[in-house]
């Protein structure tokens, strides 16, 4: 099957306009006859549900949290990019496009990235109008900062809670539609199966997490905006409930999973402390604007107190290796460099898995008050968690899994290869290639939800007859009943194993395998080993997991076990994808593909494609489909931050 990206052609700045003009429209009077399901209520899902409701579609929106306002978009700290050029520093849509294509290491489509840069302008307008309290200058106009090494100040922010404020904006728009009756919200519901009838996505099967009730919901289109799968690593900066279940179920029903090995390891997280640890905490990347990263030059010094290590014995390795960008190199580069020094035995803190992020010089230069004004809440958070005062001793940081660039394959319309199934935000693979840049995730989630899907879903719906009119699919349809039955059987089998190990213990073990072999550095040997260990672990899971309680009540252990079961399948696909891609690009570093200096080496001859995997069965090898990536505007070249 050849993948059709449906990207428009012609001059890049006209492609989206031209494409929008060519999209079919649904007659306003007919919109209410169409039902659309949106799974997930974060920036992408919340924005999509609100906007589609506003357009007149009948929308059902689902989330596993107790309120749509709690989706994990809320945790994003830093900011959101937009090519507004309010600072008059030379920004433009083209520059944002260009920076992004290069930053994602040429593994995303030019057309998609350009559209993202274009609609970034509308996003800021929309959010400001919704009442998002962005930071302002004294003149009352919006403030910007430079973020993640960008050469222009294009990042809009609301203190250290930008994600929260943007999500509350989308949430308020969503609740407005709930009040208007156009959106029905189903909180504490988890999607457990995609319903496909005659090759088209026609609904979902959910479990009500409050009482365990299994429900079938039919619709004319299904939109998945269920976030990323970083929790496959067990420890990540994701929320505890983040999972791959919705997209994985869709994958098993035929949707291709693209670039699953592209995961982002964020360089500035608080290091792991002990075996009991349940999650990792991110410290905003903005800290690298004023903090200097170092480790002792000599491994023998690593247990000394940082204050006892003289300047001459410190290795400011990012400044040394990348003099042009210094501490502000992109996330993937900074993370890998930290791993290198820790692998050399120079890491600090318990287990030697940490590097210093030191504010001593900035405090001397700017004064403690200035630093407190910029980062006060982050310093306080660090102090709470570690019981160490970062004004007095340098912070210790270590990379942690933060975001997944891979996801379900979608075309330019954000539709997967299963007609009627759309995928938005982090759940799809589309715009971040092999490395997401800072302040870009919020931008993509809102772009997809507010400004792309409202047009493209209409194009699809205009070509199909609504269920409410055609009555061709009912809850008694054989395929619908089979989907429901599959869910019930699966839950029953999880409850019946009655083994000895908890779901968490399997999850931890899986996470360790993936982190070691498919984390910051991957090698053929390691990946092959993982591909043997993961199926064995999966087999043990299904014969030895213990899930207490029943399916007919709130049962968090059952929820967890179901998610771990899916991670155990996804993990294998990630390793397979990483093995296939014998090049280093973005967050994917293959030890076999490095320069003499140990920098990542991309191989555009062989791997300038999107790897889209087709499921063939749990213990069968998936089929790889390749979508070639072409670069007409940005010349392919090695990234360099030297």
């Amino acid at each position: 099957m050849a993948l059709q990206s449906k990207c428009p052609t012609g001059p890049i700045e006209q492609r989206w306009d031209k494409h929008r003009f060519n999209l079919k429209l649904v007659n306003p009077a007919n919109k209410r006859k169409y039902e659309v399901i949106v799974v997930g209520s974060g920036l992408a899902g919340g924005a999509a549900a609100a906007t589609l409701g506003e357009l007149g579609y009948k929308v059902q929106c689902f989330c596993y949290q107790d309120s749509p306002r709690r989706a994990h978009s809320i945790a994003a700290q830093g900011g959101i990019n937009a090519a507004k050029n309010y600072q008059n520093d030379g920004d433009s849509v083209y520059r944002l496009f260009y920076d992004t294509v290069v930053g994602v290491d040429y593994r995303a489509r030019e057309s998609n990235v350009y559209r993202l840069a274009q609609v970034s302008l509308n996003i800021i307008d929309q959010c400001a109008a919704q009442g998002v309290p962005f930071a302002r200058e004294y003149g009352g106009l919006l403030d910007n900062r430079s973020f993640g090494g960008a050469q222009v100040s294009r990042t809009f922010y609301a203190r250290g809670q930008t994600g929260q404020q943007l999500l509350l904006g989308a949430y308020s728009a969503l609740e407005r539609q709930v009040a208007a009756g156009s959106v029905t919200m189903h909180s504490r519901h988890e999607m457990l199966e995609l319903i496909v009838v005659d090759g088209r996505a026609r609904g979902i099967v959910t479990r009500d997490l409050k009482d365990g009730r299994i429900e079938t919901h039919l619709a004319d289109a299904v939109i998945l905006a269920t976030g990323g799968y970083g929790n496959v690593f067990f420890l990540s900066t994701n929320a505890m409930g983040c999972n791959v279940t919705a997209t994985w179920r869709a994958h098993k029903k035929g949707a291709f999973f693209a670039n699953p090995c592209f995961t982002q390891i964020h360089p500035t997280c608080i290091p792991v402390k002990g075996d009991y640890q349940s999650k990792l905490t991110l410290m905003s990347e903005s800290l690298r604007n004023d903090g200097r990263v170092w480790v002792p030059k000599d491994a023998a010094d690593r247990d000394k107190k940082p204050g006892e290590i003289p300047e001459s014995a410190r290795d400011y390795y990012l400044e040394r290796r990348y003099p042009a960008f210094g501490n502000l190199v992109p996330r993937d580069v900074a993370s890998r460099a930290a791993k290198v020094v820790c692998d050399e035995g120079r890491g600090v803190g318990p287990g030697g898995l940490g590097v210093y992020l030191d504010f001593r010089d900035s405090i001397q230069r700017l004064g403690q008050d200035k630093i407190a004004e910029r980062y006060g809440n982050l310093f306080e958070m660090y102090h709470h968690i570690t019981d160490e005062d970062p004004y007095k001793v340098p912070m210790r940081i270590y990379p942690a899994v933060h975001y997944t660039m891979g996801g379900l394959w979608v075309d330019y319309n954000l539709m997967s290869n299963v007609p009627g199934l759309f995928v938005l935000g982090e759940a799809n693979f589309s715009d971040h290639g092999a490395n997401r840049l800072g302040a870009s995730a919020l931008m993509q989630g809102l772009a997809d939800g507010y400004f792309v899907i409202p047009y493209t879903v209409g194009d699809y719906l205009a070509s199909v007859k609504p269920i409410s009119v055609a009555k061709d699919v009912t809850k008694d349809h054989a395929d619908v009943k089979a989907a429901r039955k599959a869910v019930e059987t699966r839950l029953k089998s999880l409850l019946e194993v009655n083994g000895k190990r908890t779901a968490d213990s399997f999850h931890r073990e899986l996470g360790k395998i993936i982190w070691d072999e498919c984390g910051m550095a991957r090698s053929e040997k390691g990946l092959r080993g993982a591909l043997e260990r993961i199926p064995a672990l999966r087999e043990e899971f299904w014969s030895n997991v213990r899930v207490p309680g029943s399916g007919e009540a709130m049962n968090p252990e059952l929820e967890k076990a179901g998610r771990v079961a899916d991670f155990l399948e996804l993990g294998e696909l990630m390793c397979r994808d990483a093995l296939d891609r014998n090049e280093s690009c973005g967050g994917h570093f293959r030890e076999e593909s490095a320069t003499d200096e140990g920098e990542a080496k991309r191989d555009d001859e062989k791997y300038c494609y999107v790897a889209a995997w087709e499921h063939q069965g749990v213990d069968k090898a998936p089929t790889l489909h390749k979508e070639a990536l072409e670069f007409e505007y940005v010349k392919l070249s090695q990234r360099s931050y030297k």
Partner: protein
Amino acid sequence: MKFKLNVWRQDNAKTAGRFESYSIDGITSDQSFLEMLDVLNEKLVGDGKEPVAFDHDCREGICGMCSLVVNGRPHGPQEHATTCQLHMRKFTDGEEITIEPWRAGAFPVIRDLVVDRGSFDRIIQAGGYISVRTGAAPDANAIPVAKEIADRAMDAAACIGCGACVAACPNASAMLFTAAKVRHLNLLPQGAPERDLRVMKMVEQMDAEGFGACTNHLECEAACPKGISADFIGELNRDLATAILRSREASKNASAGG
């Protein structure tokens, strides 16, 4: 460290709850409170018992999901922190810890320590938004907002909707939540056109949900993990009074005009 835990267990909203006691050992002071509960649950599952259900998600103090009353204080003894940000170093070895759910009629218990906070969503549905159609917004810099106003709106908008204010209030009142939500939008010029209807509808819904009245104990402010000021409650009161006066005026003018 070891602890004796008295944990509220309740099968569902219809049955009565009870306390159960558990002893737990081998906890380190760096562990978070919820990680301590994870250990308890692993142990319960291992013993073939049902684990304690509690709400939690981001575990970094921003999603507002976690909701435990620890030794009589919502989110526990640490100031300006959520339960997930609480660490065991705040407790002494051997201490007895009582863990209860948020208790309010408007927050019915779903199971154990999990409560239903849908009433907060319904307060937002009543008017906690600015009616702006997607795509209809003017340029973001078209409406300047004084920095002081934007900062103050942000102070209110920092609310994470956890409900600790309700849990802490002797009257189970939702005034701090509602005040923060109303004031965030009413402070901004973008929110001005709807400010009167917004405050009236949201207060009306708040009352309909069965929350108590504010009697100015200020427990809400002390329990709020985001330090939201009770001054917003006074401002909410003022907004409501002026809104009702203005709406009377408007309806009088409307009827006079025929």
